């Protein structure tokens, strides 16, 4: 399975081709809330993921944004509930306001619309390392139960060379230095694994107290948003627990798609369906249109 090494794996501000609603068959809302009045609109699983990832930014002022799914979510948040959200890209832009989703962290529009453009050493040293940024928003190739991330290599067995992923990018220091970390990635047994083949970026290490022991300043991952639901670390054990499923998704689907025995919260919640405004804004970001039009 060398497919793992394909793009989805981005360290940070990188890799994945435009996250949302991309070639995924449009899922309908059928089954969501069985019979409850639902909007007529349909949405793709990736749209559910991105909308919920955007909502997770509520209350944050500044966000260090990875490209791909995190960028889609952060831009959606800025276009809907969080108009003052400051988007920071590792290419050196503070306060980017793109009208459409950038393909790369280096698209000219990120610089043209920024409050300030700084060098790459400056963005990492003065802004990230100094602990000035509220949220780091990351994608991942492999995640384990403590929200540690592998974006480096995949073990393909003794007879094959390691599968190569893109590498760390900014992720190790983003996860270390931001006040908290959000992660967004698609849910599958290939991505949610019992044991990482390589620890690129520390989430909660091997459990409670590990971040403090390692001298990691921020709180670490507080939520992992997927196309099936939302996982959050247990406050006692730091292990990821399924706390919410998306409309139309079953708990069994999520446990099936997880490579370890996933704990499920008592009274697991169901996320609110995307609103028309959220879907319109997300789709407009993909085409560069005005969501209010």
């Amino acid at each position, binding site marked *: 399975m060398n497919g793992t090494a394909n793009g989805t794996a981005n360290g940070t501000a990188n890799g994945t081709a435009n996250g949302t609603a991309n070639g995924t068959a449009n899922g309908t809302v059928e089954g969501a809330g069985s019979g409850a009045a639902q909007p007529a609109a349909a949405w793709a699983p990736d749209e559910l993921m991105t909308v919920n990832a955007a909502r997770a930014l509520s209350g944050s002022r500044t966000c260090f944004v990875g490209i791909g799914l995190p960028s889609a979510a952060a831009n959606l948040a800025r276009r809907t509930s969080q108009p003052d959200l400051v988007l920071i890209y590792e290419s050196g832009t503070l306060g980017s306001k793109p009208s459409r989703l950038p*393909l790369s962290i280096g698209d000219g529009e990120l610089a043209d619309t920024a409050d300030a453009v700084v060098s790459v050493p400056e963005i990492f040293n003065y802004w990230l390392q100094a602990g000035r940024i509220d949220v780091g928003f990351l994608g991942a190739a492999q995640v384990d139960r403590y929200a540690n991330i592998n974006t480096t290599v995949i073990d393909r067995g003794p007879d094959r060379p390691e599968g190569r992923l*893109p590498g*760390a990018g900014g992720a190790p220091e983003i996860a270390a230095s931001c006040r908290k970390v959000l992660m967004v990635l698609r849910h599958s047994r290939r991505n949610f694994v019992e044991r990482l083949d390589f620890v690129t970026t520390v989430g909660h290490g091997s459990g409670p107290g590990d971040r403090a022991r390692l001298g990691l300043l921020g709180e670490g991952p507080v939520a992992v948003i997927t196309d099936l639901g939302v996982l959050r670390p247990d406050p006692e054990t730091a292990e990821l627990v399924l706390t919410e499923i998306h409309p139309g998704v079953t708990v069994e689907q999520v446990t099936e798609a997880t490579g370890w025995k996933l704990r499920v919260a008592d009274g697991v919640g169901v996320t609110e369906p995307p609103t028309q405004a959220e879907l319109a804004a997300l789709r407009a970001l993909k085409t560069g249109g005005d969501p209010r039009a």
Partner: protein
Amino acid sequence: MAEIRSLRDAVAELIHDGDTVAMEGFTHLIPFAAAHEIIRQGITDLTLVRMTPDVIYDQLIGMGTARRLVFSWGGNPGVGSLHRFRDAVENGWPRPLELDEHSHAGMANRYVAGASRLPFAVLRGYRGSDLPKRSSTIATVTCPFTGEELAAVAAVNPDVTVIHAQRADREGNVQLWGLVGVQKEAALAADRVLVTVEEIVEELKPRPDAVVLPSWTVHAVAHVPGGAHPSYAAGYTVRDNEFYQAWDPISRDRETFLAWMREHVLEAS
């Protein structure tokens, strides 16, 4: 003092087999035309340094010019994998590629140390990561003032740094702006510096947001309009995102890749 040279002469004079070469540009101002000239001249056994290898190093690696890569994120930004990079690392094609792998913060600081002519830089980095296990250029150091243990990363001092920039004057003073990445640090860290530019002007008008590399820090300037394509030079060109997407199928297959390189690089000039 920088001399204004043709790209061919500048590459031939400044870059030699076995050199450590940094061709920088953090998604912006990437010196593609200079890389193509290196390939055409058959320069080989290079140690290539770059934070984001990008399509430029995918091409150099796929053509067998590199024996070693120093980097921090090796993907096709926004698209997916770098297939030639992966093929070299996983299968040794067209030759094995040694890696020295870092995080972005680590690489940025390695350039800062190199530009400062210090042996290493310190940062709060790599804590708990497996990366230091695979690199001889990451260590720890104890702060003499607070006792805090910090990451130390070895300076990078390339034999040659190549960057693209917006413009230069006839004296060889260079001006660049927009996403300035690590262009300044990479240039000041190197023994020799080659800059390709969009435009050579009579007079460099100061810009408040610009980085200036004075002529006496640069060895050669070559006038290569469009020399960053498919990357770009803000104010002159835009990033060719379609090319980055098209590179994925071109580079997946060895023969398709070689045919593309023959047609667009080896037989071009």
